[in-house]
């Protein structure tokens, strides 16, 4: 009995080792990944005195960074340059290679202008908060020399202010894994596989259970506190000022979601899926948060006289365009890029025509001292 148990255990271990070895060899063949070293998203990023930035020439799975540490090809020097700043929505998670919205924006703008006149630099980092972006501005402007900086802020990072404390406001590193962590690569694959074959309703029930367990350990709120909205507003204003202080034109984008302007009951599953990452805010709170923070973006654009493209309004919702609550599919990124290009084309044309930096925006009215409730 004891011997047979040992044999079964041995078979289990052998199977597991084979599966893990297969995953590692597969990564090596497919992505030229190291077999023995940890292989996770942390390979794409490095820490410096200004926080997290892309590691030049790094690659991980489908993601590849160029020699400047940005996703996509190097920007052409003779072109109008647009730098996209944001988090995973901008960096591109679910889109195929070359289909993330900054890449499609470049294609679309050049198509509209009828010439290869524009280069778009994707300087986004998954999990990057608006606050973290402020510190990166000097380096980014120095490196990419952009004419425009397109800011597509990720809002969910402001759900947990504790997470955004001064000590740890650069970027949520735990999202990337750690460079020295051992992890079973087969586990990641198994998770993706299970997710793809288990019916949605089962996954939703499992998530609800996990959320319920999380709720037992921490308080969940129905509505994002005003202090969080205020923190976002402060960071956004500071970011705009940091950009414009360097003679670059900022263009703000409001945040689009799978729900468009409405919430339809069949799509509630995607809210539950999203809530799994942010258990402290209940499902209804996300839509309210989006609405209030987008109001902040509009308000800051108005008071600081910054160009704004209201993508929350422009972008259609639905599962064709969004892989989850906020991340685009290939089609979603294409539609998003097309709408942004439509609004940006005149700005780029004007910039090319005057051959000056297009930051001659109307006289600025500095934002009023920050008050609570601006996002209401």
């Amino acid at each position, binding site marked *: 009995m004891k011997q047979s148990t040992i*044999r079964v255990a041995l078979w289990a271990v052998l199977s597991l080792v084979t599966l893990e070895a297969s995953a590692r060899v597969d990564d090596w063949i497919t992505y030229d990944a190291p077999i023995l070293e940890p292989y996770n998203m942390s390979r794409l990023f490095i820490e410096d005195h200004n926080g997290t930035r892309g590691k030049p020439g790094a690659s991980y799975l489908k993601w590849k960074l160029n020699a400047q540490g940005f996703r996509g090809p190097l920007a052409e020097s003779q072109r109008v340059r647009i730098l996209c700043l944001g988090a995973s929505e901008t960096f591109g998670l679910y889109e195929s290679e070359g289909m993330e919205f900054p890449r499609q924006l470049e294609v679309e703008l050049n198509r509209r202008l009828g010439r290869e006149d524009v280069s778009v630099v994707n300087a986004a980092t998954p999990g990057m908060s608006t606050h973290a972006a402020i510190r990166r501005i000097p380096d980014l402007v120095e490196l990419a020399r952009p004419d425009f900086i397109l800011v597509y802020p990720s809002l969910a990072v402001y759900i947990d202010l504790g997470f955004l404390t001064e000590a740890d406001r650069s970027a949520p590193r735990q999202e990337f894994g750690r460079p020295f962590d051992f992890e079973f690569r087969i586990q990641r694959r198994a998770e993706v596989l299970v997710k793809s074959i288990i019916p949605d309703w089962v996954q939703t029930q499992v998530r609800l259970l996990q959320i319920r367990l999380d709720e037992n350990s921490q308080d969940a709120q129905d509505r994002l506190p005003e202090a969080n909205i205020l923190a976002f507003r402060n960071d956004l204003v500071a970011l705009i000022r940091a950009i414009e202080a360097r003679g670059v034109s900022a263009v703000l984008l409001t945040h689009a979601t799978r729900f468009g302007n409405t919430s339809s009951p069949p799509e509630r599953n995607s809210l539950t899926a999203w809530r799994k990452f942010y258990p402290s805010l209940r499902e209804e709170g996300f839509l309210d948060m989006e609405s209030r923070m987008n109001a902040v973006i509009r308000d800051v654009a108005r008071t600081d006289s910054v160009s704004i493209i209201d993508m929350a309004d422009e972008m259609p919702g639905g599962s064709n365009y969004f892989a989850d609550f906020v991340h685009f599919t290939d089609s979603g990124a294409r539609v998003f890029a097309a709408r942004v290009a439509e609004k940006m084309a005149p700005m780029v044309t004007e910039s090319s025509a005057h051959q000056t930096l297009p930051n001659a925006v109307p006289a600025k009215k500095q934002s009023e001292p920050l008050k609570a409730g601006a996002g209401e």
Partner: protein
Amino acid sequence: MSFISLQFVIFLTVVLCIYYNVRHPVQNVVLIVASCIFYASWDWRFLIPLMTSTSIDYWCAAKMERQIAAGLPKADRRPFLWISVVTNIGLLAFFKYFNFFAETIQSGLTTLGYPANIVMLEIVLPLGISFYTFQALSYTIDVYRGQFHAARRFPTFLLGILYFPHLVAGPIQRSSNLLPQIVNPRVITSEKVVAGCDLIVWGAFKKVCLADNLAPIVNEIFANPNPTGFQTLMAAYAFAFQIYCDFSGYTDIARGLAKVMGFEFVLNFKSPYFSTNPRDFWGRWHISLSTWLRDYLYIPLGGNKRGELRTLANLMITMVLGGLWHGARWNFVLWGAYQGLLLVGYRLWEPDLRRASQGFSPAWRPITFSVSVFGFFHVICYGWLLFRAESLNQIHVMTASLLDPVSAMDMGLVTKILFLASPVILEHIFQYFPNAFCFVMQSRFLAEVRAVWYALLSYLVLFRGGDAQSFIYFQF
């Protein structure tokens, strides 16, 4: 519910849990219910023609059995045989060939200057109808011939037809093989279960990793209206391996499933691409169909007993009908005719070929064998072009392109096809020279080797499969 789906895994798990925990007669009931659920999961209406033909065949066979027992002459049994044949062929003709023949007649009349408007039926072809009608026919014909006793109970015969591992794409089981296994209690040993698992895992690998990864290569070239000769050649190679992996993968899974439930199915493939001539090929490819055609069509037509000319005609008729069995399209007829011509040609020149091969000393045998295999593989591949083509025009275009097979060569494509074909080649070597590899099966650490092997194949099936494609033979 395809074999390659989560639903099937759940279904099978539940079925096996129940099956292993009940005794013999009840096991059959479990399998009948499970098979009905399996078949109805595609479309419950498919059960109607199946149940109809099965009931009629059972009744006909029972009547014939009674006549045999009463010592009545064979001629008295003939009406019941005809009822069975007409029912099965009628169902097949109605569902599978009605529109094909109607279209052919319509276009023929139009060409002759008599435009006609024949009504076409909007019907769905019941899954596996070609397989189960042939199986049912073999049963009634065997009973008619007195070669096999009719099943005493309807559930026995019903399970023989309905048993889910072979229902939709074979192997076509002879009643003499399957029905005794249904009647008698099965012996399920751990060796049998392990052998079954070996087949299931290997079959899934061939289908998901090889066939489904070859499919995009084949589809892309066949979608090109003007492929180069090189592309046509690659498409033929890729399809040869795709169809083998797809069909033999299905068969392996079916045989494996049967084994884990204590059944034994007939072998359907025996390293077919190591054939050296057409006769050899049909003894190795889709064996359950080729032997069916031999026993129930070629021999009743007279076989080789009525003179040389009649033998050649019988070969042609058998193979053309065999081609048509695959589907109601002219390219299948053409493929059947091509196979028939190969058999006819081989029959005519076999003595010369044999004499020529005997001219070589035994030392040359490996070389002559390799050359024969390589040469005949290309002959088979051309047949697969006919089989896979979507129109007669495409066959013409692709055949013409083969006159220049080396222009615009793409070594990347060659490497990809070779990479995907290499497990098949190894499998062929393993099957062709079983004694050379028996040391693997005699290893002291066979269980450990198997654990590693299963894990590796499972990884490839789960994570390196191509986009899911339906089994090719499901359409037949």
